[in-house]
């Protein structure tokens, strides 16, 4: 085909001339940047997990010194004699969520998979702006360092919750935290630039750098979801940045945007925060949905059921996600009429998610299912996300939410969608695309052990929280036993804590698997999963520039088990044989006008 353009000089030659620093530290290669994001996010995931373990220690074994003499490491401002102080507990709940949401999940979703998958799946040689991409990564550890530093300043780390409501967060007067809150704000303001520049890159790359024949409706769902997520990041993060700056001004130069003593409006903070915050949660889940679609289709050897409706559902979720934010605020004293409208829109947004769920089930239905680790994670995503979605529907109803708001029911809901959903989705993604990144397979046995124990202990830990919430246990509370009506819940809390410790512990198996397989895993070859996507049409790991020749795309990404073919997969870039046209084959040389827009 005359449109196959050669990449010119071999890119692997350029590689030597770059040296260690340009190859591993200041790399502009999207795959290296993805790996860098992977290292930092997994580190922050571990930190977030440690903070969670400490929270659970206090709730499970209240007032007892931390085990294994860990209390000796912590200063007296945090845990004198190993017993966690209430003020430190507030910082723990705040920072656990902050690290998990901003430094673990977001970089994993967008930073790792956005960088890894987008250029490869659309057949590009790199991102649209590789140097900007590099900058986007390096901002993250800088912001992370600022956030970590906040633990060690006088007054300790921020303790106003990850939602940082004013007026609690606007002045150190109430929490005793001064510098810590300021550093929290500064860190997130800095981090915002990473998200915005990254999102800018992803959007531009997907729009402008698709290979010939890669029309919009031939793009794999992983890239679609990352593209939509990038739009959400692009438009939501600046709102947060603006709000954070105003709050920072309240803290530092004495303005009163949110401080009632100066006629400021605390409710305005909540509106600004959640206007960002709701699209944010879709940022945290949509990519996982994309990965799950890929894995389920591939492991069932079937096309995604309802590919077009999957795309429409993604776009609908993203679109509707902008007009539901008030459902986080039903108890805030907001205008009840406004609350009603948010209730209506929130109920509606369940519909596209349901469509996706039924489509996943439809994809699995009567498939030739291979029950390996990526599929286990993907299917458990669907199940656990449904649980999270169902608890969400309860909360969507304002009258119910008024009772359940800021109880452990919310904690259960958010962890079902963020851990049961996002984290398991990320595990699906990592186990599936690991061979592409490292050229080796992860160990299946370790993977299955990790999944089994994780799945069981996760549910043991978080399902009972629904009941805790209904019984009235508040969120972020240091000592529920101070209330007589909550004292009977202590045994449940202890049980939950033990389950969490096992859940956290088993992640070590994942870490071992991850590290061991890098060197000792079975070599994977280009396409170990017999998959159709363009990312599998290049070596594992791909060289600089990814593809030896610009790939040409002839069909959609989910032509599995096509009746006219012997093989149960049909790569997107496989040229059609003369007498057999693929179902969506169009000769890119013949059509001169743009295809579906």
């Amino acid at each position, binding site marked *: 085909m005359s449109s196959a353009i050669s990449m010119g000089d071999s890119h692997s030659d350029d590689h030597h001339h770059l040296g260690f620093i340009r190859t591993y530290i200041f790399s502009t290669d999207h795959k290296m940047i993805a790996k860098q994001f992977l290292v930092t996010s997994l580190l922050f995931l571990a930190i977030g997990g440690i903070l969670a373990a400490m929270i659970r220690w206090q709730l499970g074994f209240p007032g007892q010194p931390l085990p294994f003499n860990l209390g000796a490491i912590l200063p007296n401002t945090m845990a004198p004699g190993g017993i966690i102080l209430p003020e430190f507990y507030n910082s723990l709940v705040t920072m656990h969520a902050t690290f998990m949401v901003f430094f673990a999940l977001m970089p994993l979703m967008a930073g790792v998979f956005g960088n890894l998958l987008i250029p490869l799946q659309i057949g590009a040689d790199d991102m649209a702006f590789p140097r900007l991409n590099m900058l986007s990564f390096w901002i993250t550890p800088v912001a992370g360092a600022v956030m970590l530093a906040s633990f060690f300043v006088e007054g300790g780390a921020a303790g106003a919750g990850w939602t940082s409501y004013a007026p609690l967060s606007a002045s150190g007067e109430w929490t005793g935290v001064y510098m810590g809150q300021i550093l929290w704000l500064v860190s997130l303001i800095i981090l915002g630039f990473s998200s915005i520049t990254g999102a800018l890159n992803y959007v531009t790359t997907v729009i402008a750098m698709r290979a010939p024949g890669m029309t919009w409706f031939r793009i794999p769902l992983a890239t679609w979801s990352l593209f939509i997520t990038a739009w959400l990041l692009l*438009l939501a993060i600046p*709102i947060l940045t603006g709000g954070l700056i105003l709050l920072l001004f309240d803290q530092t130069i004495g303005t009163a945007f949110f401080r009632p003593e100066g006629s400021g409006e605390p*409710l*305005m903070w909540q*509106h*600004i925060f959640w*206007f960002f915050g709701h699209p944010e949660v879709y940022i945290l889940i949509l990519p996982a949905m994309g990965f799950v679609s890929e894995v389920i289709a591939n492991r069932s050897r079937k096309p995604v059921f309802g590919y077009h409706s999957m795309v429409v559902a993604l776009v609908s979720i993203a679109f509707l996600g*902008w*007009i539901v934010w*008030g459902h986080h605020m039903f108890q805030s004293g*907001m*205008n009840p*009429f*406004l609350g009603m409208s948010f209730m209506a829109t929130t109920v509606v947004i369940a519909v596209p998610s349901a469509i996706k769920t039924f489509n996943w089930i439809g994809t699995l239905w009567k498939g030739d299912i291979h029950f390996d680790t990526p599929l286990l994670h993907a299917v458990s995503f669907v199940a656990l996300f449904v649980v999270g979605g169902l608890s969400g529907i309860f909360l969507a109803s304002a009258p119910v939410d008024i009772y359940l708001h800021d109880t452990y029911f919310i904690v259960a809901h958010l962890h079902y969608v963020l851990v049961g959903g996002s984290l398991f989705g990320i595990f699906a993604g990592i186990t599936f695309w690991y061979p592409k990144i490292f050229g080796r397979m992860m160990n299946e046995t370790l993977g299955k052990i990790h999944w089994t124990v994780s799945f069981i202990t996760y549910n043991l830990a978080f399902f009972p929280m629904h009941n805790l919430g209904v019984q009235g246990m508040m969120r972020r509370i240091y000592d529920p036993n101070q209330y007589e009506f909550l004292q009977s819940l202590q045994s449940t809390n202890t049980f939950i804590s033990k389950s969490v410790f096992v859940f956290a512990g088993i992640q070590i198996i994942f870490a071992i698997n991850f590290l061991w397989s890098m060197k000792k895993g079975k070599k994977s070859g280009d396409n170990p999963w017999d998959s159709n996507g363009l990312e599998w049409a290049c070596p594992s790991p791909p060289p600089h520039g990814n593809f030896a020749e610009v790939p040409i795309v002839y069909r959609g990404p989910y032509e599995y088990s096509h009746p006219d073919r012997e093989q149960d997969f049909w790569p997107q870039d496989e040229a059609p044989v003369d007498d057999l046209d693929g179902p969506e084959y169009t000769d890119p040389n013949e059509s001169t006008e743009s295809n579906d*827009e």
Partner: protein
Amino acid sequence: MQDSENGTSAHHMNVLGWKIDIYIGIWVILLLLTLGEVFYAFLPLPKMVLALGLVAMAVWKAALVGLYYMHLRYEPRNLWILAVSPLPLAFILVLAVITEFGWLVG
């Protein structure tokens, strides 16, 4: 005033039989609108009328800059759809929060 791509030889508009550089032409309109805004702002009219009129003039000016200086008028349709896409969100946020303070729904 259709252009082939971005560059053309002559970007002109016809005003009373004179050929004027479009950029200068728009500039004159912007000047007039600015003067008009300042004049209008101090008229003894009800607050709402003032506010709406001023916002309308500002939006008009902004649109002119966007269409002619940023060349949106000549770009593919998808680009200007993209360009205006965040605006509805801005309206939604502000309008929704204003209702908190008694507007439209007590």
